[in-house]
């Protein structure tokens, strides 16, 4: 391999400093002055990182390639790569053309930052690979090119300092998330410290704890709920799932055509039960780690015909179908266990907008609209009750809404909200979404046509409800322990 002499190495390095300073760093200043483009606080940090990499280059020009300089360059390249990826993550998933700031050659600056820092790391590795082992250190004359690099560096960094003064102000002001366009007119200068405000967290808004139905059911007292003066529904009888299930029940659905039930458990079991709940007709145990994360299961629904839908709390779903010709060997990848008579049709994810970053604990199917329906549960970050509807045809989002409250429903306090309910079971009948809340043992009735919470009823006597099914004029409220409460279905 051909080794570079130190003089050759330093010459190359000087050109790299010139290119870095004149290109992305100087170009960014030009964008500001000529086009009014102002960097956000994250852009400033990435620009500073490029400046510091160039500064390390000046150190090497002046003092030789000492190890701590090279180490610092690698650290800066790595940190810059992280910053670019972290920044890009804010925008990469947006819709087409919705990037932030002015694009250069069709690519936004935060993506260019990723490219530049990646190149920096590659170049450092290449130079180290080719450099001569005979390292001479000590103060050395930079030469004409080196002096030009230093002067250019100071001029460009000085221009950046001027732009930083105009755009972000003197300390303690700092950069902004949404800076206004660059102007030399002081009346248009906006200096702010708003970025220092905010919650401290590793993952920011993505710190969402998994829902805990048991914790939600810890307060079943309807009197503590966010709605006051509700009518009580009486439990007219109790039934019990007699078929043996592995694990605790997480949802129960009923097929009105056949009278069969679909039960899911916290051990990834999906069971088709007969109309008496006493016998399992089909059984599979889903592999929760294959292809998508299915843990834990939270919802079940019949989609008409023989198609079954099973949902996990993160809005991932599996479609199943009883099939006497199913091949156990083919289904092995999808099921941890099977009776050999169930086929998996699809396994994918529901995408939501209003319900994004929220978990669900229920699934319902509207046979008239041919839509699957989920209802969000609150978290410390997001306290909203969002009904999401997904088209049966393509399993994509049809609509989402937060139900209005009908005039007759009265909050029990000024700060109370529907989002305090934790819906763990849901079913659609006659255009109405019936949803049972484990918190405060309450049945909510949402009119899907006008998106209004028409009525709410307390159901004293429930303990940890996890599912809701309809059987003619009655509702069946399934509990985690396998008991099923029967109540008359109210029609508001």
């Amino acid at each position, binding site marked *: 391999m051909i080794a570079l002499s130190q003089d050759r190495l330093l010459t190359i390095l000087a050109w790299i400093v010139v290119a870095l300073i004149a290109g992305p760093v100087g170009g960014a200043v030009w964008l500001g002055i000529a086009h009014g483009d102002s960097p956000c606080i994250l852009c400033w940090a990435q620009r500073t990182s490029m400046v510091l990499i160039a500064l390390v280059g000046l150190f090497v020009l002046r003092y030789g390639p000492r190890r701590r300089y090279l180490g*610092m360059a690698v650290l800066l390249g790595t940190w810059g790569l992280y910053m670019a990826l972290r920044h890009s993550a804010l925008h990469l998933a947006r819709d087409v053309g919705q990037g932030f700031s002015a694009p250069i050659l069709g690519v936004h600056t935060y993506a260019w930052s990723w490219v530049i820092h990646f190149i920096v790391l590659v170049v450092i590795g290449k130079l180290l690979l080719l450099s001569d082992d005979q390292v001479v250190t000590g103060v050395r004359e930079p030469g004409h090119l080196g002096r030009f690099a230093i002067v250019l560096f100071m001029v460009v960094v000085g221009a950046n300092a001027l732009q*930083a003064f105009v755009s972000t102000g003197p300390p303690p002001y700092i950069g902004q998330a949404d800076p206004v366009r660059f102007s030399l007119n002081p009346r248009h200068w906006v200096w702010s410290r708003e970025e220092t405000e905010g919650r401290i967290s590793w993952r920011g808004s993505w710190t969402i704890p998994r829902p805990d139905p048991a914790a939600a059911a810890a307060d079943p007292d309807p009197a503590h709920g966010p709605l006051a003066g509700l009518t009580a529904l009486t439990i007219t009888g109790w039934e019990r799932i007699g078929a043996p299930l592995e694990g605790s029940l997480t949802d129960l659905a009923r097929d009105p055509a056949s009278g069969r039930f679909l039960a899911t458990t916290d051990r990834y079991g999906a069971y088709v039960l007969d109309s008496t709940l006493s016998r399992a007709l089909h059984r599979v145990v889903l592999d929760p780690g294959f292809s998508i994360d299915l843990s834990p299961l939270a919802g079940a629904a019949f989609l008409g015909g023989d198609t079954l839908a099973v949902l996990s709390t993160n809005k991932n779903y599996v479609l199943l179908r009883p099939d006497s010709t199913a091949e156990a060997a083919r289904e092995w990848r999808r099921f941890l266990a099977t009776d050999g008579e169930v086929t998996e049709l699809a396994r994918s994810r529901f995408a939501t907008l209003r319900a994004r970053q929220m978990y669900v604990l229920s699934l319902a199917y509207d046979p008239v609209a041919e839509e699957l329906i989920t209802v969000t549960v609150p978290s410390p970050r997001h306290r909203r009750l969002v009904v999401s509807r997904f088209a049966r045809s393509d399993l994509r989002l049809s609509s989402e809404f937060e139900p209005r409250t009908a005039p007759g429903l009265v909050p029990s306090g000024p700060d109370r909200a529907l989002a305090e309910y934790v819906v763990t079971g849901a079913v659609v009948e006659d255009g109405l979404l019936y949803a049972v809340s484990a918190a405060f043992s309450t049945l909510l009735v949402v009119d899907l046509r006008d998106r209004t919470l028409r009525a709410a009823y307390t159901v004293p006597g429930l303990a940890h409800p996890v599912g809701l099914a309809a059987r003619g004029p009655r509702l069946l409220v399934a509990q985690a322990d396998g008991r099923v409460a029967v109540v008359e279905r109210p029609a508001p």
Partner: protein
Amino acid sequence: MELLNFLIILGAAWIIWRRPERERLAFTLLVVSCLLMALLFLIGTHTSFLPGVNL
């Protein structure tokens, strides 16, 4: 604060150019500037070190 950071960098570059015998001071300024840059970035992300994506 970005202004302060650029002034620190300018100071380091000035030392490299005109006072090269004070390399230790220049390198210290480089380290301080790196730390300030990292701090400002973390403030800008509201200290959400990890991006807003699934992990």
